[in-house]
């Protein structure tokens, strides 16, 4: 940033440098640019835009002679743009839209003003295949922004369209008047004209500042864009800012404006309007540009007043390039021939690779480029990295063989699979160096593919990820072109497993793309015809004939330096951008988050209504069907393993789905394919510890039904304690659940567990089982329905203390149920409880069927206490403890005629203990029999809190604090 700042004020020199650098870059790409039109897809278009701007500015200021073409090119490109905008705007836009994966029906309306944007956005989408869902939402958002800020936009469009024509003149005049300033001013203008002009409305002072602020942001923005890995969130964020930006537009642009806002905007711009990518390249060059250039520069600038030049050149240049262009366009897939011809024509030899790559990047620049190419392999080589880092991801990916035209408006023409491939590759990279290296390699790969014409035909999803080039290698690559080439073969298709990008139907899109490209092509072509032919020829001529000695000589060094630096810079910036993105994505301020959220939701809403999305969903579900079909087949024919593998895949995809579902709560639940989430276990272990799942179950640790049956049997016959059994049963339940097994085994497991819990009085666990059982029974699965109905009733009676619940569960009992012994017992218990009839209660307690006694156990304490307090109130003077022991169920036998004394005495002792612990007054009568002194007891009774009671109800977790006082 500093550099830039200095640049602006230092003016010409810096600018020149930067310009030159860029130029070099451009130049190297220049040839390609010619092709580009044909080749470049949507991104090419974006490039055009940016380039054009740059060039125009540059041309104006710097290299008159050399850059005449450039300007021409600009003009041409602009014209192209214009033409496409004006004439084919609708078509191109619509095409872009179609190209873009999501539908941009909304876009159509915007077409004129928002073209550039739609572009960027489309490019976006294309780029982030993986993020499609998210990207879609983001899209809609931007659209909204557009609508709102229609006014600011229009300037942009107008600028692009008309700017090239009328603009130059005005520029030049303003530019050059200031003198040194001019350069700076011109600079910004050219590159940022869109922004500056639109926003500032002609303040040059503003421009400079703008530029700077803009620049950095731009680059970063471009970087971010370049990094496949960047979060979609990030994007959203950008969009948000974008919207904000527009609202503020002019204010934010003011010279004083903080970098941040500008930066954000610029990044946004870059992303959206694609201009940024160019600018990104720009700034880097600027910062490093040596002052020496200034001198040379000025002259150029002065001489390079575009308008006049353009016209002249147009008229003047009747050369070969035209021929080449048409050819390229018409036979878009044969890149190389034209390229090579161009190259050959160019004295400087730029390695093919470079050229090819460059073209994509610089695609639109064509005219100026030829000359620049001459600058030398070094330049181009050096330049490449810079470009790559900046623009690589988008442009490289998007280069389309088909597209002859570089119309500004093209949407991402790259196959999505390719984009996702690039993403995958970039995701591998651990650091920036690797990233850069990868980008390099990828460029190679893609270029190759493009040249082969296999770009669209190749299965990118199946493409193997090449090993990450070592960083030093990458560095070398930066310097030397050949290396990548040599590397390239390695990466060449080595199909691996196909992890198909799940997001979009590929086929449809391809066809759409082609259509789009064709249309674009036509549009462009027409525009080309008048402008290009004239313009380009001159470039060719000038480049060949004139190539600036100065440039040549100086540039190499300069550019090498600058380029390498730029690389580093960019890397840094990338990092920054990434960090920013990350921040924006999660950590950063709440308001950001909120913004994101709101943006996200609104976009999500749009998404929901999005026909494209619907289509995608359909196709998604279809895919699952297919996969299931596959799986079935495989299961039939092949070993289990195959099936499981497939399962994995399915599950993975479903998981992603579910995850994305979690991410955005607004997504429809039906997006989750639960069938796909269901696993089929392969674990043969009978024993398994319960562990609450925090992630998707792994089939290798899940037991299939047969094993579960054995496990259940094992648990039932286990001698170990409840904790062990409970643990085992829970793991069985879990395995059943994840496999979605709901049959008699399930019921059996739950019943077993429920009984087990009853035996130990683990009510919370019991309730879980009970509620599951209720559902299972309701599904008609057979089990001990009545038994558990009785348990349920008992539970409600004694533990819920809710009359309404009791009433409803009573009224729900069927007549048949009422005849059931267990249910009758439960109902009798209810009567006993509600009436406080302890005698009846304890009789029922002793005759309880099944495990009802266990449930009643939990109420015994209460009942006894009630009973004793009742007794101590009602009986006078005393009650024999023996009687109490009998009535309150302390003795195990029903009181008969003094049958078993031992048992009674046993019960008696218990009873005495119990009474004492509850504060009862016991006295011995004359016979030595223990009596309850009722009168004394009636006021001294209390309910001790149970010793093992714990606040959270789990005795095993008891802490001393929870222990209550005891007698």
């Amino acid at each position, binding site marked *: 940033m500093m550099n830039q700042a200095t640049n602006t004020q230092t003016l010409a020199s810096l600018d020149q440098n930067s310009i030159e650098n860029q130029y070099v870059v451009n130049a190297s790409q220049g040839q390609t640019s010619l092709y580009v039109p044909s080749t470049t897809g949507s991104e090419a278009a974006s490039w055009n835009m940016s380039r054009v701007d740059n060039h125009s500015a540059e041309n104006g200021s710097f290299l008159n002679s050399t850059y005449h073409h450039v300007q021409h090119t600009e003009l041409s490109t602009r014209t192209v743009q214009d033409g496409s905008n004006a004439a084919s705007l609708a078509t191109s836009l619509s095409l872009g839209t179609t190209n873009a994966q999501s539908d941009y029906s909304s876009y159509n309306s915007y077409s004129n003003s928002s073209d550039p944007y739609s572009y960027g956005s489309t490019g976006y989408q294309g780029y982030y295949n993986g993020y499609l869902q998210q990207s879609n939402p983001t899209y809609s958002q931007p659209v909204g922004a557009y609508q709102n800020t229609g006014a600011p936009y229009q300037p942009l469009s107008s600028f692009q369209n008309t700017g090239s024509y009328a603009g130059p003149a005005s520029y030049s005049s303003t530019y050059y008047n200031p003198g040194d300033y001019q350069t700076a001013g011109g600079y910004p203008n050219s590159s940022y004209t869109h922004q500056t002009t639109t926003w500032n409305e002609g303040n040059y002072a503003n421009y400079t500042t703008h530029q700077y602020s803009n620049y950095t942001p731009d680059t970063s923005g471009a970087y971010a864009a370049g990094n496949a890995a960047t979060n979609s969130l990030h994007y959203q964020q950008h969009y948000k800012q974008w919207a904000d930006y527009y609202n503020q537009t002019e204010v934010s642009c003011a010279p004083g404006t903080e970098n941040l806002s500008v930066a954000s905007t610029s990044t946004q711009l870059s992303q959206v309007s694609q201009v940024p990518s160019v600018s990104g390249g720009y700034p880097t060059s600027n910062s490093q540009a040596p002052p020496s250039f200034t001198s040379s520069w000025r002259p150029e600038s002065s001489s390079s007043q575009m308008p006049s030049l353009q016209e002249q050149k147009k008229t003047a240049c009747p050369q070969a390039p035209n021929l080449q262009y048409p050819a390229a366009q018409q036979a878009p897939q044969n890149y190389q021939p034209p390229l090579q011809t161009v190259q050959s024509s160019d004295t400087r030899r730029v390695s093919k690779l470079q050229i090819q790559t460059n073209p994509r990047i610089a695609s639109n620049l064509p005219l100026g480029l030829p000359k620049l190419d001459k600058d030398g392999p070094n330049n181009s080589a050096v330049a490449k990295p810079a470009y790559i880092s900046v623009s690589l991801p988008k442009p490289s990916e998007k280069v389309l063989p088909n597209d002859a035209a570089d119309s500004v408006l093209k949407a991402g023409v790259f196959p999505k699979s390719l984009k996702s491939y690039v993403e995958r590759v970039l995701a591998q990279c651990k650091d920036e160096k690797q990233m850069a290296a990868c980008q390099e390699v990828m460029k190679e790969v893609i270029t190759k593919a493009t040249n082969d014409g296999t770009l669209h035909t190749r299965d990118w999803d199946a493409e193997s990820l090449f090993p990450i080039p070592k960083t030093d290698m990458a560095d070398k690559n930066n310097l030397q072109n050949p290396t990548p080439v040599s590397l390239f073969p390695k990466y060449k298709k080595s199909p691996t497993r196909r992890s198909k990008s799940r997001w979009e139907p590929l086929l449809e899109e391809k066809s759409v793309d082609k259509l789009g490209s064709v249309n674009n092509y036509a549009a462009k072509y027409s525009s080309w015809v008048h402008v290009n032919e004239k313009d380009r020829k001159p470039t060719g001529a000038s480049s060949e004939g004139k190539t600036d000695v100065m440039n040549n000589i100086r540039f190499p060094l300069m550019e090498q330096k600058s380029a390498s630096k730029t690389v580093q810079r960019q890397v840094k910036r990338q990092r920054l951008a990434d960090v920013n993105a990350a921040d924006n994505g999660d950590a950063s301020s709440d308001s950001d988050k909120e913004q994101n959220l709101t943006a996200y939701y609104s976009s999500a809403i749009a998404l929901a209504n999005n026909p494209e999305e619907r289509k995608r969903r359909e196709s998604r579900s279809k895919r699952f069907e297919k996969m299931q079909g596959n799986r079935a087949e495989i299961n039939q024919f092949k070993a289990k393993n195959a099936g499981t593998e497939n399962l994995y895949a399915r599950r993975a995809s479903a998981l992603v789905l579910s995850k994305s579902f979690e991410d955005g709560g607004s997504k429809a639940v039906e997006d989750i394919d639960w069938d796909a989430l269901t696993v089929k276990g392969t674990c043969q272990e009978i024993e398994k510890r319960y562990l609450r799942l925090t992630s998707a179950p792994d089939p290798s640790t899940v037991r299939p039904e047969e094993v579960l049956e054995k496990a259940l049997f094992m648990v039932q016959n286990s001698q170990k304690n409840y904790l062990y059994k409970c643990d085992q049963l829970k793991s069985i339940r879990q395995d059943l659940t994840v496999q979605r097994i709901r049959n008699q085994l399930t019921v059996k497991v739950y019943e077993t567990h429920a009984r087990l819990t009853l035996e130990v009085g683990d009510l919370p666990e019991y309730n879980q089982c009970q509620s599951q059982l209720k559902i299972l029974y309701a599904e008609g699965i057979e089990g001990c329905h009545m038994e558990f109905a009785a348990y349920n009733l008992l539970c409600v009676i004694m533990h819920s203390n809710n009359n309404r619940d009791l009433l409803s569960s009573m*009224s729900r009992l069927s007549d048949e149920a009422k005849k059931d012994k267990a249910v009758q017992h439960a109902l009798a218990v209810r*009567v006993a409880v*509600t009436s*406080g*009839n302890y005698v009846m209660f304890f009789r029922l307690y002793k005759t309880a069927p099944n495990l009802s006694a266990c449930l009643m156990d939990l109420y015994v304490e209460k009942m006894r206490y009630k009973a004793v307090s*009742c007794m101590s109130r*009602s*009986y006078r003077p005393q009650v024999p403890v023996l009687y109490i022991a009998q*009535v309150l169920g302390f003795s195990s036998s029903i009181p008969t005629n003094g049958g078993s004394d031992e048992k009674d005495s046993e019960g008696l002792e218990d009873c005495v203990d119990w009474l004492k612990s509850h504060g009862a007054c016991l006295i011995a009568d004359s016979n030595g029999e223990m009596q309850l002194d009722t009168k004394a007891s009636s006021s001294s009774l209390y309910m001790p809190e149970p010793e093992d009671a714990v606040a959270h109800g789990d005795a095993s977790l008891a802490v001393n604090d929870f222990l209550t006082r005891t007698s």
Partner: protein
Amino acid sequence: MGEAHRRITDYLNKFSDAVSYQDVASLAQLFSFSSNSPSLLSLADALNYFQDANRLIKQSDKFSQFGEILAPIFRSLQSYRLGNLVDSYHAFEKFANAFIQEFRNWESAWALEALYVIAYEIRVLAERADRELASNGKSPEKLKGAGSFLMKVFGVLAGKGPKRVGALYVTCQLFKIYFKLGTVHLCRSVIRSIETARIFDFEEFPRRDKVTYMYYTGRLEVFNENFPAAEHKLSYALTHCNPLREANIRMILKYLIPVKLSLGILPKAWLLEKYNLLEYSNVVQALKRGDLRLLRHALQEHEDQFLRSGVYLVLEKLELQVYQRLVKKIYFIQKQKDPSKAHQLKLDVIVKALKWLEMDMDLDEVECIMTILIYKNLVKGYFAHKSKVVVLSKQDPFPKLNGKPVNS
């Protein structure tokens, strides 16, 4: 065609006139589906015939400003006429929402009456839609939706200002929904906001709403077995209820009678006859006679009914009073025989008496019941375990409840 057209425009005119003149009576009429008024029915036919009512709405500013309200109600009416109640409900809810929006904007509460109609209609429509859904095997959820809509309406009304008068009506509709859905616990928040509001005296609400409100809150108290409060609320409802509305009186009595019974207050036979509450007559008889068997039979006979209305448990608790009556009778008989020993009741005697009633209970059980009676203060005295004798207090051995609940 012309006729259909005329009917629709007629409706539209009525609507816009009613709104502009704030004529709530005619406005309310326009919404009252369940009235099945011929004009609405013919309008529905016209809509189904004409099919393009929206064009008519858009045709004039007078109507189009209410397009949000009118378009859905037309759709709702159409579906209603065609018997497609679920669709009708959906459209009606949309209409109601739009109307609420509009209502919010009206300063005065002139349209309350119309809002009442909407609140009523949406509930009834939701119930019917649920029935339709249930018959199609789908989960009925419209009533729940209507509940949340009415909650919104309540929010609109419950604040300060003239519209608060309408809050109680909506509350009552909400009660109806919640009771029907069995989600009674949801009532609590509404009740709190009604009862804690200091700025608006309860008595200022319309009488019919007050009665309804008291009826439902009384029922809630019955569930909670808070009998004094239940008695208070239900009695309020009964005394303020329009005496000509016998159905309403019967509904109140259905709960008030058990409540009063549990407080020891028995109804006259004519009351049960007049309001056709004969299911209680045996219970009352049992209480009078101390006939445990009769009580149990009565409970068994009407078990379903009592369970559904939620008074089963209340009635079941009357058993203790029946025991008390029985013991009292034995006491009187003994007193006639031998006044000096009358206050000592042998357990055997009681067991025998129960045997006559075909109640097979052994000594322990009866002893238990006697202790409970003493414990609950239904019998004054004590039980001597050794001699198995209930010793009654000489003074007022069988205290009357006199409107106080049995000790629990």
